[in-house]
């Protein structure tokens, strides 16, 4: 499912809202999430999961073309930890598929 498919699904369920509003709302939610992470803030969504930053310490890298070493600065990378409900639901779906395949 892509972002535009997600917008379509939500627009069908919120048929009293203009499609454009749903589109703007989805973009606004994603922009808030990006902004939070870009400023070092965590995101916590119960039943879905949490996003936080993980730190990668500075290291020596290599330019693959020339082979010279370059010093790479430390940086932060986004990290997602699925919540219990998401983990269980995704895995239950998988177990059902396996049972059906085995029948």
């Amino acid at each position, binding site marked *: *499912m*892509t*972002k535009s498919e*997600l917008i379509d*699904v*939500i627009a069908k*369920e*919120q048929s009293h*809202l203009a499609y454009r*509003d*749903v589109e*703007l*709302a*989805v973009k*606004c*939610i*994603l922009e*808030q*999430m*990006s902004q*939070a*992470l*870009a*400023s*070092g*803030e*965590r*995101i*916590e*969504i*119960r*039943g*879905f*999961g*949490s*996003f936080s*930053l993980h*730190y990668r310490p500075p290291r020596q890298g290599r330019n693959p073309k020339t082979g010279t070493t370059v010093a790479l600065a430390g*940086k*932060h*990378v*986004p*990290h*997602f930890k*699925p919540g219990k*409900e*998401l*983990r269980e*639901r*995704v*895995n*239950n*779906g*998988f*177990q059902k*598929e*396996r049972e059906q395949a085995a029948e």
Partner: protein
Amino acid sequence: MALTKADMAGRLFDELGLNKREAKEMVELFFNRTRLALEQGSQVKLSGFGNFDLREKGERPGRNPKTGAEIPITARRVVTFRPGQKLKARVEAYAGSE
């Protein structure tokens, strides 16, 4: 301080003029529909943000950390998040300490 669903709904109210109930429903739907797609076995690709991918893991040996007894960890499907280029670049610039 962490960003929550209530914060996100608050901004939909402030910035887009949705009423409070619409704003709350919109945030709920965003996460519920994303979860439903994953639960049904579909990857979710949110361009500019990142992809929620599904990975299948085979059964592997495990241990009960309390008793030390060996018990197999069953085959399962798990969700992983791969941040997109745009998000990675924005986060990389964060200079906070850790």
